[in-house]
């Protein structure tokens, strides 16, 4: 079966490209990224702040068993409805550093769309830190989330 989510990470580069096709109209895909209530549901994080406009910013925070386990923030550089978001992203207290993200939303048909995220890291080493992260504890978290989804 073809993989729905594809990741391209070329050797010697400090960027990653994530692509995914959705059975969703492009406006709903865009909404999933720009409305706090939806971000909270699919990312499983609390949205403390979200200003979807040029020169806006955002802050996310996730707690697990009463402890804050994940904090992220960024600045929104440019938003074009149903088309693109350019923003920075920083996971606080991590060695990954600030990354620049280009999110492109594309309509494929009335009912399907494609998201392409190009992430640029400070260096190839910073990108490697990002890729190692799920191995260290991200997978455990994903595993917990999956269990929550299944058993709740």
């Amino acid at each position, binding site marked *: 079966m073809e*993989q*729905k*989510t*594809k*990741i391209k*990470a070329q*050797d010697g580069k400090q960027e990653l490209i*994530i692509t*995914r096709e*959705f*059975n*969703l*109209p492009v406006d*709903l*895909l865009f*909404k*999933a990224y720009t409305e706090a209530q*939806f971000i909270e*549901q*699919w*990312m*499983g994080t609390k949205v403390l702040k979200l200003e979807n406009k040029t020169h806006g910013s955002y802050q996310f925070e996730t707690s697990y068993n009463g402890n804050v386990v994940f904090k992220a923030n960024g600045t929104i550089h440019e938003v074009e409805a149903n088309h693109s978001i350019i923003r920075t992203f920083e996971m606080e207290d991590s060695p990954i550093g600030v990354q620049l993200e280009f999110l492109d939303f594309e309509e494929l048909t009335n009912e399907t769309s494609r*998201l392409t995220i190009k992430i640029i890291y400070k260096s190839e080493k910073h990108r*490697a830190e*990002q*890729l*190692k*992260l*799920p*191995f*260290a504890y*991200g*997978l*455990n978290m*994903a*595993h917990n*989330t*999956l269990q929550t*989804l299944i058993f709740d």
Partner: protein
Amino acid sequence: MNLRRDVFQAIADPTRRAILLLLTSQSMTAGAIASNFNTARPTVSKHLQILTECELIKQEQLGRENYYHFNPNKMKEIADFIEPFRQIWDVKFDKLESVMNKYKTTQNGTKNKD
């Protein structure tokens, strides 16, 4: 017949990931590794066997004791790291799709009522 083992199979299990994390900081004997888990000793031995077959860890005799070492060469290839990362995104995006499809259904429901 030997089952074919790969890195992804090795890291698919939470106990094996925990063992690998323990071994990234120091070499340990099987007994010392097992003392970190509530699982029965033979279960831990089975995990150690799988990790050894995948070459993620290596055994070395030091004095009377058999020590397990983490083998970073096996994990250094970037391709090995991409798959867990990709799976996390895949799960997240599946969730996005189901959340938005649910929303779409309620929207359609509201429209039909109008």
